[in-house]
């Protein structure tokens, strides 16, 4: 069974551009979360989507947006890129809304975004 997949693997953009990152969760998982990991830091929560609705949002500006599709895959969009947006963007899927009991989050390989 395939794990969480993300595309693209790497991406290079320039300041001011827009980027779209994609994620496909584990089959049967309805929750997708996005995290940003800047070099030298732990991942920071950006969004959670569950059953196609936003169910959580971290402390990120409105330049960051996301959506979830009927097949539970998700896109993360970042507008007006800044140098500080350079990071590893991780997608994680889980079966339920709350992270408790057997409901673990499984991470994808990430998308490495470099903003020049």
């Amino acid at each position, binding site marked *: 069974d395939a794990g969480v997949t993300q595309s693209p693997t790497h991406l290079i953009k320039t300041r001011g551009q827009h980027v779209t990152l994609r994620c496909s969760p584990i089959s049967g998982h309805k929750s997708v979360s996005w995290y940003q990991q800047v070099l030298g830091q*732990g991942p920071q929560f950006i969004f959670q989507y*569950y059953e196609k609705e936003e169910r959580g949002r971290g402390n990120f500006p409105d330049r960051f947006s996301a959506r979830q599709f009927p097949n539970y895959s998700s896109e993360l969009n970042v507008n007006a890129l800044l140098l500080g947006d350079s990071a590893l963007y*991780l997608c994680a899927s889980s079966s339920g*809304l709350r*992270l*408790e009991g057997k409901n*673990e989050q499984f*991470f994808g390989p990430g998308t490495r975004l470099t903003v020049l």
Partner: protein
Amino acid sequence: EDKVVQSPLSLVVHEGDTVTLNCSYEVTNFRSLLWYKQEKKAPTFLFMLTSSGIEKKSGRLSSILDKKELFSILNITATQTGDSAIYLCAVADGNKLVFGAGTILRVKS
């Protein structure tokens, strides 16, 4: 504000040594504490802890949670070069994970 603090930030040991990694937390809506190993990209799951005082073990790795003192430790015995990685501690706060900055472990042969 929710906070997870890991120590030490980095550690260099020799093969065969035993290491202890620390994680303390202040999280409003604690559900569980998780440990991940991150080598190149995706963090890989090690343990989920929800109850105090119950040790979880997997091979040479073990972990325990103290919910009264709000901390957890991850022990690795008989370290190997393949244990070299970033070890991340995270607390499940409702529907999201709050991560610490990680401990960089390097095991020298």
